[in-house]
């Protein structure tokens, strides 16, 4: 007698396996980036990256620094997922493909952590 829920026996066995999670994460991060990018680009272009005190002062606002953290997390998540798919498509074979996939994970995790640390520092010194 099998007491297992039919859904439990079927879950994860489709051809997509965990692929839907990857697809969905790419869309969620895309939406966050699409909403925040116009704002980020406008702020950067208008400042011309020239006024140091003005750039720093913006991070004193928790809404601004919080949005920056959300932005960099969504950005590196999206970039990591995207590059992973590109490597899956064009690099075949154990050595180079695995090395590239590992490098992408490590570099973009590190970039996300460093970016958040820098924003935290900016929020505290401004």
């Amino acid at each position, binding site marked *: 007698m099998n007491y297992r829920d039919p859904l439990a026996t079927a879950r994860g066995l489709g051809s997509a396996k965990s692929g839907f999670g990857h697809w969905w994460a790419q869309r969620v991060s895309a939406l966050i980036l699409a909403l925040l990018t116009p704002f980020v680009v406008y702020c950067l*272009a208008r400042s*011309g990256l*020239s006024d*140091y005190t003005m750039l720093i002062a913006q991070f004193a606002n928790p809404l601004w620094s919080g949005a920056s953290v959300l932005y960099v997390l969504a950005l590196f998540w999206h*970039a990591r997922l995207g590059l992973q798919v590109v490597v899956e498509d064009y690099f075949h074979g154990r050595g180079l493909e695995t090395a590239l996939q590992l490098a992408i994970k490590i*570099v*973009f995790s590190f970039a996300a952590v460093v970016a958040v640390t820098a924003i935290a520092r900016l929020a505290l010194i401004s």
Partner: protein
Amino acid sequence: MSQKRPMSPFMIGPYYRPQITSMMSILHRATGVILALGSLALVWVLVSLSMGETAFAATRSCLASPYGKLALAGFAFCLMYHLFNGIRHLFWDTGRGFDIPAVYRSGYAVIVLSLLSTAIIWWLATSSGGAA
């Protein structure tokens, strides 16, 4: 495992004429790769900003150099293209806009919008006095 098999866009060129649909698709991927690698430069800007005024001045002079400006302009175009074409993709995800005339219309709209917005960004950046 590593046989010499043709890779994804192998048919374009020798077998059939490039169309806006396939070209825009590959450009979405190419701009995505450039943006992903360029996003690491954003970390560098954030870090130098948090390290103080002298560190940021060095970053700024690097970005304000001719090569820096060229990279920023190219990056701005990649970002705007990937943004507008990404919105096009999100719209497609709802299952709409797939008939051929609609695909061409949205394609031309993305090209016009990305060029226009890149020009606006450049105008904003140069008129703010910073130019970098």
